[in-house]
């Protein structure tokens, strides 16, 4: 076994272990900060670990219309986000570098949304169907934003390889990186939607749809969905950090690695603050908002194609 192969396997395991171990912690931090903003004591930061353990140990009730598909959707959901974890740099180089490019990344990110759709269809209740119709609408309007960003990066980097694109590529134009700055603004404004937190938790909206697609889930399978939801927060933060704030990631082991997690932590705090100070949007308002962002992002893409 050569060195590259060893790194691929070891690195992937490292990334998967890191997101699995740290995702509940970040969720705990998010909950704690939210609580402090709301003048509450809040649960200990370890609470999400206990919550997951509790759910995993609970009785598994399959109350949806197609239990097989429900089961499949739950497993696929977590598997997808863990696969993505191997395609994103987390303080080191990208583990699965040679085995996929940004197109695969986009596919996998879409697939994690598809899992929610499958879950909703399998549950078959009115509320879950309403939830997935909303999920689908926001997916259709959010996906292009990500594509535009990655394509812009690829244009600048003249490559679709992960290591070139996920390395501050949007800024790689000549002179002032206009397209990079525009996309930075767009992605910051859309970030809340990618991680599905208030004000864009529309498809689950507890007070309207009672968790929408997840309404028929309980016990271990609910835990899997919750887990992948938490992991998504880290993955999107890592993706954002790699695209827009790559600085310092090349430094030697503990420093570069620490810097990366500090950036992710910063993004989690940002997400928390936005979530705690906003009310939920309605689906039509959200779509209009995304459409506006897409127009701006396209302008960035045009600039990028001229080399700015």
């Amino acid at each position, binding site marked *: 076994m050569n060195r590259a192969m060893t790194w691929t396997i070891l690195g992937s395991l490292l990334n998967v272990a890191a997101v699995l171990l740290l995702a509940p912690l970040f969720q705990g931090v998010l909950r704690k900060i939210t609580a402090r903003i*709301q003048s509450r004591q809040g649960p200990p930061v370890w609470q999400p670990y206990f919550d997951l353990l509790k759910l995993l140990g609970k009785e598994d009730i399959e109350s949806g219309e197609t239990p097989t598909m429900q089961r499949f959707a739950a497993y696929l959901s977590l598997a997808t986000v863990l696969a993505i974890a191997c395609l994103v740099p987390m303080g080191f180089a990208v583990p699965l570098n040679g085995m996929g490019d940004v197109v695969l990344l986009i596919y996998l990110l879409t697939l994690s949304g598809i899992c929610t759709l499958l879950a909703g269809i399998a549950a078959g209740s009115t509320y879950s169907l309403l939830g997935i119709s909303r999920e689908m609408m926001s997916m259709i309007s959010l996906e292009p934003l990500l594509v535009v960003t990655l394509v812009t990066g690829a244009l600048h980097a003249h490559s679709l390889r992960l290591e070139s694109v996920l390395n501050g590529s949007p800024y790689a134009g000549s002179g002032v990186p206009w397209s990079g700055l525009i996309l930075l603004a767009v992605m910051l404004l859309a970030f809340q939607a990618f991680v599905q937190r208030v004000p864009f938790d529309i498809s689950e909206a507890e007070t*309207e749809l009672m968790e929408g697609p997840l309404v028929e889930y309980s016990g271990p399978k609910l835990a899997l969905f919750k887990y992948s939801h938490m992991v998504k927060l880290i993955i999107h933060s890592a993706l954002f950090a790699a695209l827009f704030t790559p600085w310092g990631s090349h430094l030697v082991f503990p420093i570069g690695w620490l810097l990366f997690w500090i950036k992710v932590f910063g993004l989690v705090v940002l997400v928390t603050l936005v979530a705690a100070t906003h*009310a939920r949007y*309605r689906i*039509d308002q959200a779509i209009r908002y995304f459409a506006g962002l897409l127009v701006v992002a396209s302008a960035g893409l045009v600039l990028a194609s001229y080399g700015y």
Partner: protein
Amino acid sequence: MIAHERLEQLRQKFGAAIQHTDFPADNRLFVHVEPAAVKNICQYIFRDMDARYVISIGADDRPYSGKFLVAHNFAFDHDHLLCSVLVELPADNPSIESISEVVPAASWAEREMRDLVGIKPVGHKYLKRLVLPDGWPEDVHPLRKDSRWDEVPTGFSDDRELTFDDPPEGCMVVPFGPFHPTLDEPAHFRLYVEGEMVRGCEYRGFMAHRGIEKLAESVMSYNDIPMLAERICGICGCVHSVAYTQAVESAAALTPPPRAEYIRTIMLEIERLHSHLLWTGLACHILGFDTLFMQSFRIREPIMWIAEKITGNRKTYALCQIGGVRWDFTPELKIELRQTLDKLEAEWRPIVAAVSGDKNIQKRTRGVGVADKKLVKNAGLVGPVARAAGVDMDCRRDHPYAAYDRVEFNVITQNDGDVWSRVLVRVQEVFESIRIIRQCLDKMPDGPLQLEIKDELPIGRIGLSSIEAPRGESHHFVITGENNRPRRWRVRAPTYQNLQGVPMMIKDQQIADMTISLGSIDPCFSCTDRMETIDLRSGAIRVWSQQELLKLTQRQKA
């Protein structure tokens, strides 16, 4: 005298149909009319004289007069007058011409009258059951005097499913309730939805009807009932207790001592404070804005504590007795209440600033759940819902009770009639409540808390009382009776009218706006149901019925 003037107007128009009249005070008018003329008279009062519809009451008066009794109550808000149109119906044929065609707001009241008293509103367009479950036998009417209060009629089947109307073509049915995170109590809306748009809905509620009126009429006494009335609502209990007490006092022409009136005013306003703070929090929660939800609850808590210090309880104050109150204010309590109010006012200002400056909340509430002046009039909507539509009504000013005629306050109104206007009305009313309590604390005279009542209360007299609850006008109707208890007691909570406006408010709106539109009337339903247990070993599912649960609790008691 304004009551005379109104009566003269009616006499000129319907001279022959008016049998006799009674105006015990300048702010009450009772008109007994011929059954045949009731629809025209109500139409004239409602449309031409522009009175507000309050409620219709059916009563079984057979043991006393040999007849059934129907009362249609109206309020002349500008004239400070409550008016009751009374009709006597023969015992063998209790049917009356429906007024719901000319007074749409009477629809529920007439359906309830048919369910509970068995008085048939002839010509009612939609005579579906309202209160009684579908499994209840057709010819048993619980509020008739020959029905026992604890009677379960033969032929009653507990598990009959509710029947529903067919949805319009092209619409999907979204069941909303009986259990839903934003409904704190059971009520069932069947939403007819086209995509994300709501095209209509059917409401089935009264799932936990407790028969409180019947209980009061059969086994309780005048002074027990305030405690029972208080338990009608989990939030505005004191309102019902005071409203009932005042209805009896008005029937018996009693006036409680001034100090008692001031104490009632203070407690009612404390209740409004905690209710409005609770509502603001819940509305923000419905919109997904949990930070403001938590902050309003934090600010609300000291109000609950001071209520507990005054009455011994956070919520059910056990305040009223006929002719007085049971709790006094010590000087220390007055100081502490003032301090609590100061703190509340200081903490409430930034919240109001945060809410009114928030674009995000406005986006979700402006133009949503609109109830315009026309709907307010036709459906008889009350309280903040009416005031948000620019209808300047407030029972505290229009039908002054307790000490409200001795304090100054503004009636807050807005013009758009949407959820946003209701938010603005409620957050501003908090400041007015604080102002009222402060004035009461300043002006409260010393003196007795309880009127000395030497004689038995007179029999067969009618009392009306309207109170501005946090959610709108709460109206109580009492006929005094024998055995130290009323013959008939009818409670009309504000939600009873406001719910009738909801289907129009949510029509042609996004389904996401349904929850906040319903929430914006601050609905108040009621609770109890059945539960399910699963035997882990066999996996068998067993549904516990209401009876079994009842048996379970009774066995544990014994």
